[in-house]
């Protein structure tokens, strides 16, 4: 059935209010969008790596999750949920349970790109029928905005501070989405909650209902860590996509499709200037940082387009 926002909102809410995520956080927006793609009758077992999402949504004796939820540690969310999925297969085979259960794992970029990469890689390679969603906010926000391998170049974080000599993080981001695509799993996508949420909903639906392992990398701005005013969430996301800093694409059975090509590709400054973490890039003498950032984005975008053609 074609996506219809007005229909999708009628589905029961699966993430209750009363969680302790900061006002304006992008992560619960991603989570709600992903969970809306579940069929109403399906039960979900949802795992989370340690991080903002986990400590804020499951703080004893309260849980925001209306489905079953498990957190065990930071670096092992994928392995933990892979165990639950194995249990489902075994108990189903033995006739001990009925009904359909979907397996979903959330991790921030710290728990996904960095400390949890091995566990993620293992679970995806083994082909568990589960979806792993990274909510990428580009730093270790839960511990107070330290750099991760998902942090963009030159971002000012507490462990890559913009100083007089070093202008923030000196390395480019790790391209995790393509790393996951190279696991040759049935479905990999990069998405963001945007506009009427069609892109993220459609990708979540495909990921959930394509048998086997699936990975989604979802853009999830952090107003506190990125230093912008909370109402601007959706503007920041749109700028990331329109500058091609965060391209929307998917890889289905090895075939890459770029889902959104901006009619007018915006300069990276438009994204950077909206956020305090990049402010130092606009200082006199740091012009080169913006040039290098733009060059890096352009090269990656061109490479993505050429991968689509091939």
């Amino acid at each position: 059935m074609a996506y219809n926002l007005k229909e999708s909102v009628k589905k029961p809410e699966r993430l209750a209010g009363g969680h302790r995520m900061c006002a304006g956080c992008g992560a619960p927006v991603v989570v709600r969008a992903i969970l809306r793609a579940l069929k109403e009758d399906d039960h979900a077992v949802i795992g989370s790596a340690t991080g903002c999402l986990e400590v804020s949504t499951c703080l004893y004796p309260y849980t925001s999750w209306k489905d079953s939820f498990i957190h065990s540690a930071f670096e092992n969310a994928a392995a933990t949920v892979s165990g639950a999925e194995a249990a489902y297969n075994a108990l189903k085979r033995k006739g001990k349970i009925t009904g359909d259960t979907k397996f979903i794992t959330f991790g921030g970029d710290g728990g996904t790109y960095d400390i949890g990469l091995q566990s993620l890689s293992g679970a995806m390679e083994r082909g568990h029928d589960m979806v792993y969603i990274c909510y990428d906010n580009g730093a270790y926000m839960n511990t107070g905005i330290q750099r991760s391998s998902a942090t963009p170049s030159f971002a000012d974080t507490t462990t890559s501070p913009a100083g007089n000599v070093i202008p923030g993080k000196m390395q480019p981001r790790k391209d995790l989405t393509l790393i996951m695509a190279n696991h040759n799993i049935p479905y990999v996508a990069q998405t963001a909650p945007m506009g009427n949420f069609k892109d993220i909903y459609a990708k979540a639906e495909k990921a959930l209902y394509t048998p086997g392992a699936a990975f989604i990398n979802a853009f999830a701005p952090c107003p506190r860590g990125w230093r912008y005013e909370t109402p601007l969430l959706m503007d920041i996301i749109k700028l990331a996509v329109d500058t091609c800093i965060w391209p929307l694409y998917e890889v289905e059975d090895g075939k890459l499709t770029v889902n959104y090509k901006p009619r007018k590709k915006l300069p990276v400054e438009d994204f950077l200037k909206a956020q305090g973490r990049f402010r130092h890039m606009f200082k006199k003498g740091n012009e080169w940082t913006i040039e290098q950032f733009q060059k890096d984005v352009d090269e990656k975008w061109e490479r993505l387009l050429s991968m689509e053609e091939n």
Partner: protein
Amino acid sequence: MNKKDKLNLGNDVNWKEISPGGVINEPGNSDKFKTGDWRSVKPVWIKENCKQCMLCFPVCPDSSIPIDENGKRLDFDFDHCKGCGICAEVCPFSAIEMKDN
């Protein structure tokens, strides 16, 4: 994990009555925890301007825009709305205004 019948939500629960293993057996019970008092500004829904386009609903991080059985939005859930203002920013019809709390 063994089942404890009723989850004790009190801060004075003793060790014999606390749920073993920290299991929470009340799905979605965080709605009993009010985050509305975090708010410094509040969204005001101007019903006459609202076209029920639903663009505000998915952008809410706090699941604080209730939907009725016909798929129409209702007034905000002020028990949980933290006043981030994303909904007001995305509304194309000036149907949400941020005001001092």
